[in-house]
């Protein structure tokens, strides 16, 4: 074991820090399109988008370990690390590199780097949420085309996305083997997007309707019936949890600040032993999350694919979200009724806990795939 970074890796960290000093304003509006465009451009220019992707795919060919450092520093500075196209850069891109045709790589990857495309992901359907493999949106072959009919739901960013990375059913007898992955431009005739206001009252996810949408078969990613395999790999990318650990580190810093500010029995809450122990318990698990991320990273470096064990950090993170939220609102007292940062956070974290598979789904994955218990 060795947790030290090499001099080259330390130097890379310094480079990232200087990049952030130069390009990230102290205050910014994460929803300002002008800022995001600039930021995206700067990231692209520095080679930080698709950082660890192979050079021939247009990436920077960076080492995975440097990507870890990059993510960590970005998150430490609370930067919108991947600009506007989180989904594209996190899992669509790697999936295209692994399963895509030369034509698809040429078409989609350069745009992704330039920050000129936003991707959304069409997994869930009204009848298929946690049981994703039951999905029923159909793609019927018609000559060189598919005709897509059906409906997706909870599709984040569909209202602004240029493309959708989606799962369809090409065959109905095989549950997993009948699923295929398509890459479709959102302006294709027959696609209709209806935003769904989240409980925060803003549009973040959508319903997407497909009515006789004709797309060429060249839109297919991988082979027919290979869609489930493509997506399982993509979801594991989402769950590696390294940047999540750094994100939680920012959260606990904020929580500690709050504990210094609010009073308990006339004294700063931070002096209360219960409060101190609770904060230490959060910090302990956040430290462990980062370390577990490093264990997965090591496995990746040794050429092993991310396994279902990556569900560990997703599940642990859910616990931390619940407990840290509960704790923050407890400290706020009646102030918890008013609108404010902590209160807002208390509503919004549910989205990230449920997205990508609820905690119960993570428990199913762990108990069935890792512990070998029978499927229910």
């Amino acid at each position, binding site marked *: 074991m060795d947790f030290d970074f090499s001099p080259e890796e330390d130097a890379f960290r310094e480079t990232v820090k200087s990049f952030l000093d130069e390009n990230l304003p102290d205050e910014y509006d994460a929803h300002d399109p002008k800022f995001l465009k600039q930021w995206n451009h700067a990231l692209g220019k520095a080679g930080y988008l698709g950082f660890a992707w192979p050079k021939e795919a247009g990436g920077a060919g960076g080492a995975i370990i440097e990507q870890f450092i990059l993510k960590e520093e970005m998150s430490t500075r609370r930067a919108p690390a991947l600009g506007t196209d989180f989904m594209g850069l996190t899992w669509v891109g790697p999936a295209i590199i692994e399963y895509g045709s030369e034509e698809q790589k040429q078409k989609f990857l350069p745009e992704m780097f330039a920050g000129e495309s936003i991707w959304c992901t069409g997994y869930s359907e009204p009848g298929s949420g946690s049981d994703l493999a039951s999905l029923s949106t159909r793609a019927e072959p018609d000559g060189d085309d598919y005709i897509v009919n059906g409906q997706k739901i909870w599709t984040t960013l569909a209202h602004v996305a240029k493309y959708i990375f989606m799962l369809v059913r090409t065959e109905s007898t095989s549950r997993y083997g009948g699923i295929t992955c398509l890459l479709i431009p959102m302006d294709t005739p027959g696609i209709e997007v209806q935003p769904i206001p989240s409980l925060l009252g803003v549009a973040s996810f959508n319903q997407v309707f497909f009515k006789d949408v004709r797309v060429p078969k060249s839109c297919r990613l991988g082979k027919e019936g290979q869609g489930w395999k493509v997506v399982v790999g993509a979801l594991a990318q989402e769950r590696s949890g390294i940047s999540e650990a750094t994100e939680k580190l920012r959260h606990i810093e904020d929580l500690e600040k709050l504990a210094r500010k609010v009073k308990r029995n006339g004294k700063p809450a931070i002096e209360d032993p219960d409060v*101190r*122990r609770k904060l230490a318990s959060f910090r302990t698990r956040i430290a462990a999350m980062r370390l577990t991320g490093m264990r997965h990273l090591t496995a990746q470096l*040794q050429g092993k694919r991310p396994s279902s064990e990556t569900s560990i950090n997703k*599940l642990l993170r859910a616990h931390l979200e619940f407990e840290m939220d509960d704790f923050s609102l407890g400290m706020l007292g009646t102030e918890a009724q008013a609108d404010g940062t902590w209160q807002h956070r208390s509503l919004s974290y549910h989205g990230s806990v449920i997205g990508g598979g609820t905690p119960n789904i993570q428990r199913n994955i762990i108990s069935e795939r890792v512990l070998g*218990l029978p*499927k229910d």
Partner: protein
Amino acid sequence: MNFAFTEEQDFLRSEVRKLLDAQCDVKHVREIADTSEGYSRDLWQQIGELGWIGLAIPEAHGGGGLGWEELVILFEETGRSLFPSPLLSTVLCAETIARFGSDTQKQRWLPGLADGSQIGTLAFLEESDEWSPKAVALSGKREGRELVLDGDKRFVQDVVAADLLAVFFRRDDGELGIAIVESKSAGVSAKSRDPLDKTKRFGDLTLAGVRVPQEDILSAGEAEAQQILELGALAAAAEIVGTAEGALDLTVKYAMDREQFEKPIGQFQGVKHPLAETYMEIETLKSLVYFAAWALDSGDDSIALATSQAKAYASEVITRAGVMGIQLHGAVGYTLEYDIQLYLKRSKWARPMFGNEIHHYERAAALGGL
């Protein structure tokens, strides 16, 4: 950066597990636990010859010259097997001497501890029940070239079996000291206490006018004593990893075998989800424990925080794993016959050993700048 064990370390783990599976399965554990001594002399001799006890003792003094990464592997496996022996106590006594003894002292005591011919332990905890060097009050008065020790120690692990005691005491001038005392010395008396977990033995120690020559005092004060407590916390946390995993494996097996409503109960989410939670917690704990072992071996300045985080979380994990195991077993979990109760009892030993989560989270808060 590399967070993985080496092939040699993986080999050590498989060798330790192989021997314990063959010679110390749960049937043997129960037999050994029912003896008055509480450990098997045969097995003890064997692991001494195999070099387990002296794994981290310098080669010059009869040991294997390895470190805490290897000790953590060893303790994880002994924890998994509920191996009843004075291993943890002896290793910690040897570490104390290896770290803070002179060359003469090391040459005198370490070879015997390394090969198992001598059993050692730490005599630390007192009436205050505080795992903190500041709480050490046992009196060590200077009389000429000798020191006279007077006072009581509690919960001294393997105190009846031990030949050598690392006694933490308070000098006339208020400084802390550590003396190596032979248990057969005049004025030393040990009295065993009934443990909840019979695979772990301990008792109270009384030192009444025990005379210790200057050459038996180690060169250690409060900071050094604190380091020993950190080693103890890590050793206990490593055992907990194995014990919790043992409880999980046993319960998973039961959940697959036991059928109700014409299905294995492991098919019900009410059963499989708590098992998944325990798995997640154990994996999370491993990350903390392995990192702390690396920090110790490489002298990283995060040792104190890392060991406290590891033991704090370990105390919580083993407490929950013990309860989970019994509850998912249902009524048979409440019987003497089923083995899961052994893990619950071990959790009662492991949680407070070298400080429970209350102690260590408080410490982690202070170390983390709160």
